[in-house]
């Protein structure tokens, strides 16, 4: 016994009213009348207190179900109406973009800013262009051959662990990857030069690289490198040292110098790590440079004869050197950025500083 109340028809009436609503305003009114404080549903709820326990329980259950159903219907209708209204608004707001009236859009009050990485890259490119280099670029997706094989790092080579690699779902497993360094561009350049008679080569190669490494204040998984390659006659290790030194003073300033120390890279021999005078303490020794006065910037060396062999350049006729370092690292050093991740945060308050 439910006090003569037909909960079922209550729901059906509400369903019809909800379906009939066609605007946000209408659905709001309908919602108020079928589930609001003055709705029959609410009235019935208020009468529950007067019933005996069993009837109260039964009617309470029915009312709860009815309310759930009605609210679901309202919500669903509200969503439909909203999306229809959005569509209608969008159609009403149709614009012929060729009706553009010159002068109708006002110029901005302030200039925007190039990203610090772009500015750094441009500045580095300009220094190298001034030194006689061209600027070359290459793809971010590479095959194993270009990223490793041609660079004297055959499959299974333990030196591969020097580069944590992102592999892609293209080709056979672990054959196509996101380049871990800009060095594959060297291989493309040399191959092209061999085919098209393009030797000598004097080029720098900036670009985005990827390493499967957890990011921290000093490392980003996606980062930028610039690589240099000279293949010419009579090029020596002494030329490499001179080039690095000239670049260092040109980019960092006359009181910043460079030094080379032995290192290992599979694609160069002899190989070197190059360090520059600490830009924080200018060589006096500080925390940043672990009191040494020097900070590591990049790697370099004479192109390994195995690399020349891979691309078909005669190592007896031609000689070459290569070097590479991080663009983001340069920016970090020059601007004393404590945490490299500020570069990818895209906070306008950071971007507008440069």
């Amino acid at each position, binding site marked *: 016994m439910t006090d003569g109340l037909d909960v079922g028809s209550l729901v059906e009436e509400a369903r019809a009213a909800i379906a009939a609503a066609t605007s946000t305003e209408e659905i709001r009114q309908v919602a108020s009348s079928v589930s609001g404080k003055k709705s029959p549903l609410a009235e019935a709820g208020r009468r529950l207190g007067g019933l005996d326990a069993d009837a109260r329980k039964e009617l309470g259950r029915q009312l709860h179900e009815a309310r759930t159903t009605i609210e679901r219907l309202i919500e669903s209708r509200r969503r439909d109406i909203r999306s229809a209204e959005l569509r209608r608004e969008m159609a009403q707001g149709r614009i012929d*973009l060729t009706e553009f009236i010159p002068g109708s859009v006002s110029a901005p009050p302030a200039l925007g800013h190039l990203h610090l990485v772009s500015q750094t890259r441009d500045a580095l490119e300009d220094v190298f262009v001034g030194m006689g280099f061209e600027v070359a670029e290459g793809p971010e997706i590479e095959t194993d051959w270009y990223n490793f094989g041609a660079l004297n790092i055959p499959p299974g080579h333990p030196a591969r662990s020097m580069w944590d690699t992102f592999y892609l779902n293209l080709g056979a497993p672990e054959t196509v990857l996101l380049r871990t360094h800009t060095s594959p561009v060297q291989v493309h350049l040399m191959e092209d030069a061999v085919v098209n008679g393009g030797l000598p080569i004097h080029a720098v190669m900036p670009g985005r690289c990827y390493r499967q490494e957890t990011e921290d204040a000093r490392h980003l998984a996606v980062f930028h490198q610039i690589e240099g390659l000279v293949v010419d006659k009579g090029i020596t290790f002494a030329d490499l040292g001179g080039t690095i030194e000239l670049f260092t003073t040109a980019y960092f300033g006359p009181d910043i110098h460079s030094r080379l120390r032995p290192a290992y890279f599979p694609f160069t021999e002899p190989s070197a790590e190059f360090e520059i005078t600490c830009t924080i303490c200018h060589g006096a020794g500080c925390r940043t440079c672990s009191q040494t006065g020097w900070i590591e910037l990049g790697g370099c060396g004479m192109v390994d004869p195995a690399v020349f062999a891979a691309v078909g350049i005669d190592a007896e006729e031609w000689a070459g050197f290569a070097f590479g370092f991080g663009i983001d690292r340069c920016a970090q050093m020059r601007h004393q950025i404590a945490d490299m991740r500020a570069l990818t945060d895209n906070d306008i308050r950071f971007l507008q500083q440069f």
Partner: protein
Amino acid sequence: MRVPLSWLRDFAPFDREPAELVAALDDLGLVVEEVVMVGEGLADVVVARVSEIGPIEDADRIRRAVVEDGADRVEVVCGAWNFEVGDLVALAPVGAVLPGGFEIGRRKMRGVVSNGMLCSGAELNLTDDAEGILVLNEVEGARPGQRLVDALGIDTDVVFDIAVEANRPDAASVAGVARDLAARLHLPFHLPGVADLAAAGGAAAPRARLEPSGPNVDALASVRVDDPDLCPRFTARVVTGIEVTSSPPWLSRRLALAGMRPINNVVDASNYVMLEIGQPTHPYDLGRLPGHGLVIRRAATGETLTTLDGAVRTLGIPGPGLGDDGRDCLICDAHGAPVAIAGIIGGASAEIGPETARVLLEAAYFDPLAVARTSKRLGLRTEASARFERGCDPGAIDPAGHRFFELLALTAGAGMQVAPGVLDVRGEVPVPFELPVRPSRIGELLGAEFTADEITRLLEPLGLATQPVVAEEDALAVTVPTYRSDIRPAPMGEADIAEEVARTFGYSRIARRMPSWPQPGRLTPFQLDRRRVKDILCGVGSTEAWTSTFVTERDQIESGFEPPFVEVTNPLVESERFLRSSMAPGLVRAVVRNSERRHPNLRLFEVGTVFYYPEDRDLEPEEGPPADTSERLSAIFADEGDDAWTAVWVWRTVAAGLRIADWVMGDRAHLGPAASVLHQYRSAALASIVAGPPDEAGSVEFPTELGVVGELDPRFVGQLGLVNPDGRPRRVGWLDLDLGALLDTERAPRRSEEARPVSRFPSADIDLAFVVRDAIPAGSVERTLRKAGGDLLESIALFDVYRGPSVAEGARSLAFHLRFCALDRTLTDREVGELRARSIAAVEREHRGELR
């Protein structure tokens, strides 16, 4: 590689200051990453007994303590609470300098004078405990007044933590480091023998125990190698009658300083040999080795082994990487059950235990690539595997066995008996070889002259013997020892020798020279134009962002692309494993993030690569680019009042800045998947006109699609959370340009570079307003007027668009400002009148537009 200085001194008299040695090591490419001064700063610290503890007035965190240092009573103030009267503690008296250079002074705290400091383990660099002070009650024999270093038996030492390059397995040993360093400092180098152990602090081993005796090794054990390509050389030696005990303190200490935990005399001797000369060995309990023998074979597919670390390892299954054929090398007992993964880790079954009396010592040369692939696939890198995969010295196998016995004899007891003979299965291992080197070539590579004599003097201390080649002037023969696996045979090896010459000579001593060449340095036209476009974007008030290449699957789908996507198989974040096909999600999110930080009004752009799954997926890796990519410029305009018009204005600024000759805005039908981020009715495709204007109906052929312009779809924007305070999606302008197409002057021709003369004669202005149906783009009308005006039309601009009561439904009035001018004369009124009439007629004819 952690190398104690005291150990290095076994090989050569390194009497220099640590800083000087560090500089020399760095300069050799053996980069010292850290120098640990063991026992430094402890010289002045003494043991003291606490005789009194009392409170200090008005202080509840510090107390007064009186300690006796054997001679005096010293009053100190102390903030630690973990000691009582009678405890032995470490006292740093006034004047003491602690690790890190902290000098103890006399201080007054709350009226009490502190005449020193009671030290914590952390302050002394002995333990990590910084909470309480170091209590020494448990230290045997400790007494007040004794120096702390004496009480704890600490010898001072210097440990160099050296980053060994991947190509120098020989330098992953104390001997290898010492050899390079001695060569650089011109010091005599020798390999230590039994006698040197005494110098290290131990008694020399009784020689008798090292004399082979008893049954021959082949009566005690057997070895069979089934797969010699995986294991080119395997030796086994046997020693019996040993006692397993702890190592001599000096040996344990050296291991500890080098970063290895001492275990027992057998395992320690093996580890010591590995650290000392770089050859890993493995001792087995011969008594627990079924069949008293070893079989070396490749693992069967899916074979398992429980390794020393308790993990069950599955072997013999190829991994995904190139060059991993799944051929893993196992060491098995004589019955074929695996007991170790060759060169990587032992199994638990034949481990040395307290009961071990007979030891079989393995010393072998495993195929470096095989060890590398197994280690990589199992994710298991050990001290041994790190050395084997870089290429151990096959010549060190026998010295290693001998050295192991020397060390074991120190502690193994009087019953130790070395079995005569060695089980030696020998296949093809690297051997010393002669490398022809031209001194002139070394000079050409380095840019510095070196005579044959100079080269000889630089190489010989490294163990690289040289000999002049008879009958040739410019030739040396360098004998490359097996421990220098990084030096290759001819023709590559000459470069390796050049590096050795430069390294021992000193990189910094090679004079530098700036090369020059006749070719000019320059940027390509594309690179210059790309900079120009970015500068223009900055000029219109937008700032360059750098958003992530990695996006979610949902981002990809919301941006209008359908699987498959280019996907990272080993992503850093599992959900972000797709390479973006659009920069829209990243840029919208960047605006959202700035809004959350209360900078909601901004314009951002990005230049970057987007990626599409290639159509032709069967491509061989060597052929062509392995994926479809596009370098694009995307910009989002979310400043106050920004909308599609902002984007259109920016586009027109870019097009003008690049002098794009002719372009059209087309309808959405031409937009690719990238358009699904766009508002259905407030967007357009951009295309360059290569030849010919659009046809009569105003529809446009799309010779080269340059990009899209308009407003972002409110649903897309809303989903990414870019909403107004009322919850509705924000209106934001969007411009997305394909830089490859836009900056290609073939596909998007530029206006001629030829200078156009400007007229000295006055111009005539006329304004024309037409009522034209909405379906006809204003751009088409403008185009018609341009054509009608011909060469005499100097400029044209739309200046008003009117919809309202006085204009028919479904149409609008477009008002243009036209300026006419001739180069050679002032246009007459009649001429202007004719131009006006011609213009009106053209619009009436082409678009059924009515003059208003």
